[in-house]
């Protein structure tokens, strides 16, 4: 007897049962796929924020800058940054390269001084990296070379400033002397990233250089890659390029080795892994449960078939095949549906405007679920296997019972 054919016939015969079991497996699989995609999306968000706002994929700095970072050492800079940026841009793996200069200043307004953190940026180049144009709440971006700036909303509030007004910055320049410069506020920005320093402002990097007496220098150059997985590889390549350019005092670090944000990323990932585990266990339970029930309900059938001469081994294998087929089909459909739901949502995003418990950060996080191997192929195989394996326990138990017993149990 071809067990496979019998298995198929059984499935078709007990339509209701197969449907119930299959549906359960399908829904469980569907949800796991979706949940994993959601999680991947959230993690991707965190990573994307680190890359865009903090360090890029690879960060180029003066070798001694990091250890002295607290003192904001402007003389430990990337000199002739334009050259470095252009060189990086010309590499095929690179999506964008931007220079940035961080500096601390005192903001002088109405007779008082306030602390502020400034970032000198190349606004045109940042269109694809920091995407400041998307964060503008009021006004416009500064023009390069001009004494113009955009402020964070928090700072604007603290200083009671509006677009069009001016304020003066005081800072320690590269030569340990003081510098003062008046800027016109051309716009107010709000970045939807939690943890972003509330008191910051953005200034054109060439104006910054003039202000800080740094000629053609930046404190760092960030590189964003096309393929986020080749980070370590490119960091090495970049180091080589820099050496070839004669820039021995510069180093290129992959973002995975920089600072605390990586730590939180890891923490987030671990947390989500645990959540994923919960889903797994639950979905598995559903699948196992269903499969087991199906078999236990068919005790009489098992008895009949055993009485007719089928060996326990064949019985087990029969049910295994049944579970396998139902599982495979259901899992396949489930994954397909999961993909079907995820793809449009990945474009549109899920707008979670539900304010977070307690703290009102005025953030509307939009999550873009994303598909990956884990959420699709892996889930498919896992569901199928679990369904098939789940058949063993009940079928083995059932097969061992005396046919008479089985026939009697209803």
């Amino acid at each position, binding site marked *: 007897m071809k067990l496979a054919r019998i298995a198929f016939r059984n499935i078709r015969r007990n339509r209701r049962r197969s449907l119930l079991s299959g549906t359960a497996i399908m829904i469980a699989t569907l949800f796991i796929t979706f949940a994993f995609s959601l999680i991947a999306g959230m993690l991707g968000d965190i990573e994307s924020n680190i890359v865009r706002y903090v360090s890029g994929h690879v960060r180029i700095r003066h070798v001694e800058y990091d250890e002295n970072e607290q003192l904001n*050492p402007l*003389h430990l800079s990337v000199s002739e940054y334009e050259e470095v940026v252009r060189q990086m841009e010309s590499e095929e793996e690179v999506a964008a390269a931007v220079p940035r200069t961080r500096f601390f200043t*005192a903001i*002088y307004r109405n*007779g008082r*001084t306030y602390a502020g953190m400034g970032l000198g940026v190349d606004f045109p180049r940042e269109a694809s990296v920091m995407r400041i144009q998307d964060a503008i709440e009021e006004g416009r971006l500064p023009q390069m070379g001009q*004494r113009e700036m955009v402020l964070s909303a928090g700072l604007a509030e603290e200083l009671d400033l509006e677009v069009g007004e*001016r304020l*003066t910055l*005081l800072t*320690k*320049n*590269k*030569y*340990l*002397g*003081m*510098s*003062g*410069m*008046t800027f016109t506020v051309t716009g107010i920005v709000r970045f939807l990233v939690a943890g972003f320093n509330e008191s910051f402002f953005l200034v054109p990097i060439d104006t910054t250089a*003039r*202000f800080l*007496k740094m000629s053609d220098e930046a404190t760092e150059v960030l590189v964003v890659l096309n393929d986020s997985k080749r980070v370590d590889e490119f960091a090495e390549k970049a180091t080589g390029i820099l050496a070839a350019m004669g820039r021995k005092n510069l180093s290129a670090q992959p973002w995975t080795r920089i600072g605390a944000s990586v730590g939180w990323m890891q923490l987030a990932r671990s947390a989500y892994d645990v959540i994923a585990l919960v889903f797994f266990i639950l979905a598995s339970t559903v699948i196992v449960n269903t499969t087991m029930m199906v078999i236990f309900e068919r005790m009489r059938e098992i008895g009949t078939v055993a009485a007719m001469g089928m060996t326990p081994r064949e019985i087990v294998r029969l049910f295994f095949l049944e579970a396998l087929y139902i599982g495979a089909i259901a899992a396949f459909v489930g994954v397909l549906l999961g993909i079907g739901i995820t793809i449009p949502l990945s474009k549109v995003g899920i707008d979670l405007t539900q304010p977070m418990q307690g703290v009102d950060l005025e953030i509307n996080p939009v999550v873009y679920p994303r598909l990956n191997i884990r959420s699709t192929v892996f889930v498919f195989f896992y569901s199928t296997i679990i369904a098939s394996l789940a058949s063993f326990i009940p079928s083995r138990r059932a097969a061992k019972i005396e046919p008479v017993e089985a026939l009697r149990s209803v």
Partner: protein
Amino acid sequence: MNRILPLIFTFGLLAALSVSAITAEEIVKNVERNEINEAERIDGSMIISDRFGSRTKTFISYASGSDKMLLEFTNPEERGQKILRLEDEIYLYFPEAEEVIHLQGSALKESVMGSDFSYEDMTGEGDLLDQYEVTLLGEESIEGRKHYHLELKARKRGLAYPKQEAWIDAETWVMTRANAYSLSGRLLKEMELGDIRVVAGKYVPHYIIMRDAMKKKSSTEMRIEAIDLVAKLPPDIFSLEELTW
């Protein structure tokens, strides 16, 4: 030049001098006579050093009496920047700033140009004999010259340096050395003056170095390249209008 230094160090602290027959007031007058000028113009340089290295700045300063001073930087990086002191007020001018910065309150505690001097150090806060109780600890010889070693203890609260020590050259009435201490008695700053030359009948130290005693490589040095004690100063030079010119 001394106008820029913590004036607290340099004034008539000698009231309690018991060694010589000369009275405290007369000593104070001697020191002040040597120190304060009707008009003064200095061409000088300042060298600021920290663990990363040294930076030199050059300047021209004008002073009148003990409460008016205008300083303008002439080195390339800070050229055009000015500091104006009118009694207890400090004003800063920067060529690329469209307003004059008026420093008050806690801003005065900031250091001038990242040096070891703060703006506070630059503003005299009233009569020193009022603020400090002075004791003569004795006589010491520094580089072969007789010096009076004085100890100053703050009479009231709120003075930046609760305790100081000074060594005054007995002949020239120039303070050669000074130390400033924290409330608990720890040495914070050390200052030395040297290269004393006679200019228009007065003894003028042409070199000063101030060190942060707690940070190994942090110091500020000042040199007088040229000094004119009888300069004819332009009228209204110590004014806000002049500052922005």
